[in-house]
């Protein structure tokens, strides 16, 4: 489904973030990407979404080179991927409710669906009381949960979560991870970037370890080793 072929990413300042990275994520897989802060996890995710272009090599989604997609197809692909960003990327001028509703409006969903689904997912994620607040009125953990609600609301084919538990307490971390497991069990592909050892070990799924821009380990049922 998602494939990296000899991908190298060098930022403008000649900083090599990823070097000759190759791997494939199959449909229905649960992949954890681990590595120290600055290892290149976020860059890897940005390459999948077409937010950065690979300096060399090919990143493809369902067999199509992401860097060569036309605007229309690129946006369609982005709608099929629910993404939780490390810095949340919420819409600051919209309320909690509107942030989630916007995703459905982008998809062209009916108002009836929106009125039904948005409160439901906000309830599930524990933001039922804050629907009319603006993002800056939420705590870090609440913002993180809002961005998770947003990633899930359209029932996308792929969920990508970039350190989604970074701002959560152990209880909420457990909640979010079991939510991701549940989604994966329902047949969806999940990519999780994290540096939380306990989370990875408990999952017991495939783990890719990045160090200094290279994949140093790719284990099915792997453990967190750095």
């Amino acid at each position, binding site marked *: 489904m998602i494939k990296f072929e000899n991908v190298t990413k060098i930022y403008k300042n000649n900083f090599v973030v990823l070097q000759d990275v190759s791997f494939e994520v199959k449909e229905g897989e649960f992949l954890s990407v681990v590595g120290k802060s600055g290892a290149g996890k976020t860059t890897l995710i940005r390459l999948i979404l077409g937010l950065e272009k690979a300096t060399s090599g090919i990143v493809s989604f369902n067999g199509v080179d992401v860097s060569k997609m036309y605007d229309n197809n690129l946006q369609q692909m*982005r709608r099929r991927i629910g993404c939780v960003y490390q810095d949340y990327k919420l*819409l600051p*001028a919209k309320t909690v409710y509107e942030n989630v509703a916007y995703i459905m409006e982008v998809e*062209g969903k009916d108002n009836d669906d929106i009125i039904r689904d948005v409160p439901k997912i906000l309830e599930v994620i524990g933001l039922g009381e804050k629907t009319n607040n603006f993002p800056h009125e939420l705590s870090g953990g609440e913002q993180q949960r809002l961005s998770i609600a947003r990633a899930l609301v359209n029932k996308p084919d792929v969920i990508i979560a970039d350190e989604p538990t970074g701002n959560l307490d152990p209880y909420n971390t457990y909640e979010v991870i079991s939510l991701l497991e549940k989604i994966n069990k329902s047949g969806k592909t999940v990519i999780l970037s994290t540096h939380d050892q306990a989370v990875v070990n408990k999952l017991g799924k495939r783990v890719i370890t990045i160090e200094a821009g290279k994949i140093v380990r790719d284990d099915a049922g792997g453990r967190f080793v750095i």
Partner: protein
Amino acid sequence: MLTKFKRIFKFAMADFYRNRGISLAAIFILIITILTVTGLFLMHGIGNFIISEVENKIDITAYFKSATSQDDIMGVKNQIIAASPSIKSVEYVSKEDALADFIEKHKDDPTLQEALDQVGDNPFLPSLSIVTSGEAAEYEKVANILKGEQFSSIIEKVDYSQKKDIIDKVFSITSRITTFGLAFTFVLVLVVMLVVYNTLKLAIDHSKDEITTMRIVGASSSFVRAPFIIQGAMFGVIAFVVCFVITAVASLLLSGALSVMMPGFSLFHYFLSNLFLIALIQLGFGTGLGIISSVVAVNRYLKL
């Protein structure tokens, strides 16, 4: 489709309200712009009125000897018309008409009436009132015919007004105004457009991260762009309504003062008779600038 339009409109309204400080600033700049352009338009109207006023003034009057027959005078008139077909008008005024004119003009002045009665006879001379186009060559031509040997026996005297000088002066001023003014107007409109663009750009820069996020979650370019365009158009329409009211009230208030300086000219009447043109210019400038600026400014952030 309708749902999509409703959503876009809803976004536009919400943004407009939530960023009302910036919205008001953008509208204010647009108002200044539209008023500047309207002012230039009204100036143009006033200038044209002055020129046509001066041009239509009688500039040469030829008085004939009292006994000259109408046929002879008509002969002179025909020769003038033949010599310069572009002449504005050559009007024959008989002794009787001149007297009637005089009586009409001074009907409130009994002393002049008395004086006239004492003279007894009609003291006025038949004449030709000539209005030239203001061109120097034509003026010369007419003057030469009237000065000629041929008519010296029937012409009593010829009055040349100062019109030629006035027209020359007005023309040199207006031509200076039109070349200089056109360049000035052009520069002014350019500056004003840049100011509008930069104000709206500021408003949109403010939403830069928001636009990026919308793109990241898969919104199409048009879905992101449309609310900004609608906002730009809304700024334009609001600015237009305000400007139109200001123009109407200002032209009504200034009308009195201006018609004292320029009898026969009513600014308000000029405004009314050009109502649609003025509305079109104002609305066109307002919404046009608002929309174009928004599109250009927002497109910079749609690349992601």
